[in-house]
């Protein structure tokens, strides 16, 4: 309960700061919308139907948007030396990690809640609403994986001069399994009716993705004490 309240205190602070400054959300939103506009003009032959490769395109937009957000996720802590303020506090450093994972997860989810309906209306011909629960589960697990490993990598890079470069260089290879599984889930669901074999493949991908999330979160949680503040 105590740990929960400390996580909530840090998370609430991040949400308040973002609501006041909107630095991260606005840049993420503009980036993802720009990507979709480019998609629209790039696929001129069938510009209104990206059903077949919707999942892949969606996650291309999300991953780069997430990297943009991750690079900003410790911006408030760097200003005024507030990271030292957090590290001085008598809290387990892993709780800082957990709260940062949650805030990154929430910010990416906000962007997705806005952009997925827009993307679907403009580019997807198939009505995948009957599979919406599985679709949302795939998005949820994909986000969690990106936030877990992304927060860890961002912390590793936080005190380096080339932070903006290091986060994608270190993070993208680690995120590849997450992306592959998330694209498999979203892509298959968006592409059309799921046959028994495809459904099985999607469910299997959900299970493996959940496993990756657990492994990434637990490993990062355990190692966080060694990477933050050093």
């Amino acid at each position, binding site marked *: 309960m105590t740990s929960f309240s400390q996580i909530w205190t840090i998370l609430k602070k991040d949400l308040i700061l973002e609501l006041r400054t909107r630095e991260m959300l606005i840049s993420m939103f503009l980036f993802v919308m720009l990507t979709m506009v480019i998609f629209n003009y790039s696929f001129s032959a069938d510009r209104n139907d990206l059903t077949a490769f919707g999942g892949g395109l969606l996650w291309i937009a999300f991953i780069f948007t997430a990297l943009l957000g991750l690079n900003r996720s410790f911006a408030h802590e760097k200003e005024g030396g507030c990271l030292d303020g957090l590290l001085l506090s*008598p*809290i387990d450093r892993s709780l800082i990690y957990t709260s940062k994972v949650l805030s990154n997860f929430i910010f990416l989810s906000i962007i997705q809640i806005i952009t997925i309906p827009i993307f679907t209306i403009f580019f997807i011909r198939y009505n995948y609403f009957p599979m919406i629960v599985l679709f949302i589960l795939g998005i949820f697990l994909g986000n969690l994986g990106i936030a877990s490993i992304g927060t860890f990598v961002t912390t590793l890079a936080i005190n380096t001069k080339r932070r903006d470069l290091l986060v994608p260089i270190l993070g993208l290879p680690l995120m590849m399994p997450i992306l592959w599984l998330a694209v498999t889930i979203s892509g298959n669901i968006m592409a059309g009716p799921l046959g028994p074999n495809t459904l099985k493949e999607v469910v299997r991908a959900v299970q493996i993705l959940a496993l990756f999330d657990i492994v990434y979160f637990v490993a990062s949680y355990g190692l966080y004490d060694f990477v933050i503040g050093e």
Partner: protein
Amino acid sequence: MEDIEIKVSGLKKDFGRRKVLKGIDFSLKKGGFLSVFGPNGAGKTTMVKILSTLEAPTKGDVTIAGIDLMADPIPIKKKIGLISHNPLLYGDLNAHENLRFYGVLYKVDDLESRIDELLDRVELSNRRYDYVRTFSQGMTQRLAIARALIHKPSILFLDEPHSGLDPHAVDILDGLLDDIRAEHTFVMVTHNLEKGLTLCSQAMILDGGKIVFFEEKKDIKRNKFEAIYKKSVKGEVV
């Protein structure tokens, strides 16, 4: 032995090949005030960062209030406060929100009245709902003092606390230090010889990661102290 608050033995810190601290040994009694002087790059801030749990030492032992810093830092964090040239405050939170944030992390009892008391003490009650980014440097530093004291620490680390302060803020800081002097232990890094020597019970000069001077205030001969200090600041081998 029981009244030793801070004990440091064989403390070393390397950043890659650069040896910043080359073996520091000292102890400070409960209620003591150690002023640390030395040129830039002497390792003063690194030492304070290690003592305040922000950096891990490469080698050596640090015991604070009888607790091994490396083995169990969380209880130590509850006992220490840090005032540095960085305010450790969020510019887009107001003064009250900043103190509340840290107060909750430190699990301060009766937090609202503690915040009121501290804001009164640093004369910022009328600015409690203003964002910190709208504060002057002196006001920000006054709020940083309140932040450092929110959990009633018994040991205070001060890293050049007077730098950038206007005279009014210096008076407030000195007044606060006077008020809490009796029941606190202090380690202050400073370039201000007058202030440092006036406040201290012990004085230390660090140079090149080593202690080149360490004496009780009553034993300090001002001429000898100043000669060593000037040599170290000028970069001469002491």
